[in-house]
């Protein structure tokens, strides 16, 4: 092809680049043999080693189906099936996002717009200008390579996040495991946990203290995603290791806080609520570090929010907490929740107050048992399901039996 050589040599900038070989698979579609050969020769001279040809739309579609090329150089006016139709089918029927470079002599703006509407990625003018063709092909091939790499990376990340999420959820007690602890100690319990963006920093735990008492803990670590999740794992180990003082909420929360202080970087902290329920007295004794106020839903229809104020955990070395008590009676329920249930950062007037949460809960619970409470309150509060994923959501409802 002496013509091509001459064309390229006119432009010395491309001479240097011609040596790079590129094994991207390119399909050149044109009904004129001379056009196909010209384009093929230009690309070959530029270092592309895998070039295939089709002489009309029908042949092109067959080859695309069979070999999934990395890029199309496509003519528009062809017998049997034109370039517009090929674009449409590649995008709609095959659902492929490969770059389609349309070579066209079309001058009218409207027609050029149509080329893009049908799904073309870019246009090169006809007659072919070698330098233009090569740079456009290179740009799109490179772009696609980056896109594929990124997609591969994203898939791997998603896979790993799913694994981590499963690990995280396995840290939590199932309702059956929780009931095995609470039922002999005079209480029923249902729970729900949903991490935001796959990984979260919420954690709740329940453990037996003696034959009559159990401890119930709800923690919300600041931040979301991987950092919060790693901290949640460390927190879980910490909780398991703090076996002393479990019967004394203020003391135990203080222990947890000073250990978290050593564990967490300065801008990270946690809110927490820890309660001990004693079936002999039906008293719930609790201590809190800035947790959302749990709500006691009385059997007679009344309600009260518990005072859950207290210093954030992990900000200071020797934080002192206060134990508070509430007398419960048979049929009373206590609702614990993370702030994701009530906070609305888009419209702060829409954030729920404790009274709002109490009223919604009462309506849901009227004459029913607590089993499906978490699902029902989520349905009521989150009218737009996508809003749920904003933050980690934990809901725990305990009932004195």
């Amino acid at each position: 092809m002496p013509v091509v050589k001459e064309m390229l040599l006119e432009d010395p900038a491309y001479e240097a680049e011609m040596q790079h070989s590129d094994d991207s698979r390119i399909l050149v579609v044109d009904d004129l043999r001379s056009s196909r050969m010209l384009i093929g020769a230009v690309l070959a001279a530029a270092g592309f080693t895998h070039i295939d040809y089709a002489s009309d739309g029908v042949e092109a579609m067959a080859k695309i189906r069979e070999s999934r090329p990395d890029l199309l150089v496509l003519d528009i006016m062809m017998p049997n099936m034109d370039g517009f139709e090929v674009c449409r089918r590649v995008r709609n029927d095959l659902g492929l996002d490969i770059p389609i470079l349309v070579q066209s002599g079309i001058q009218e703006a409207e027609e050029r717009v149509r080329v893009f509407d049908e799904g073309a990625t870019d246009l090169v003018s006809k007659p072919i200008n070698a330098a233009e063709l090569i740079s456009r092909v290179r740009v799109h091939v490179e772009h696609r390579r980056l896109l594929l790499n990124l997609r591969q990376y994203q898939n791997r990340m998603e896979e790993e996040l799913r694994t981590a999420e499963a690990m995280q959820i396995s840290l939590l007690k199932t309702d059956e495991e929780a009931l095995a602890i609470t039922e002999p100690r005079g209480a029923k319990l249902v729970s729900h946990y949903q991490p935001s963006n796959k990984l979260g920093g919420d954690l709740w735990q329940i453990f037996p203290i003696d034959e009559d008492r159990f401890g119930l803990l709800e923690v919300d670590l600041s931040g979301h995603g991987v950092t919060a999740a790693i901290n949640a794992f460390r927190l879980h180990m910490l909780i398991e290791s703090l076996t002393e003082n479990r019967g004394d909420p203020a003391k135990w929360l203080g222990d947890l806080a000073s250990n978290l202080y050593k564990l967490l970087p300065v801008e990270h902290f946690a809110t927490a609520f820890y309660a001990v329920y004693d079936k002999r007295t039906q008293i719930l004794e609790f201590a809190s570090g800035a947790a959302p106020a749990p709500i006691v839903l009385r059997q007679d229809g009344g309600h009260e929010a518990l005072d859950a104020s207290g210093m954030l955990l992990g900000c200071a070395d020797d934080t002192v907490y206060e134990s508070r008590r509430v007398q419960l009676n048979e049929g009373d329920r206590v609702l614990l929740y993370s702030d994701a249930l009530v906070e609305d950062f888009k419209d702060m007037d829409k954030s729920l107050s404790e009274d709002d949460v109490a009223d919604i809960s009462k309506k849901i619970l009227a004459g029913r048992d607590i089993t499906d409470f978490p699902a029902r309150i989520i349905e009521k509060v989150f009218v737009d399901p996508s809003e749920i994923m904003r933050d980690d959501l934990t809901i725990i409802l305990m009932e004195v039996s």
Partner: protein
Amino acid sequence: MEYRIDSQGERAVIKIQGVLTFDDHEKFKGVVKSITGDDAKQIEINLTETKMIDSAGIGMLLLANDKAKKVGKSVQLSGVNGHVAKVVELSKVDQLIPII
């Protein structure tokens, strides 16, 4: 979030406007930088026009406080009101950063 810094010798006032949440993380780095870089020894973070704060926002204030302490400066909060006051009260931030 938007912020404005008024520096007068020993004292600087940083006004935080809008909402201070997780999304303002990057922007807040500018606040921390100016606290450590500025000549002022006393820094007042004014929250009069801060409409809302979340736990990440509280974390950022704590971070600013910590960085200031490390270079021998002190941070105070002022203009705490509305939603911010509720969060500050609930989390007892006043035990860590003085409120004026």
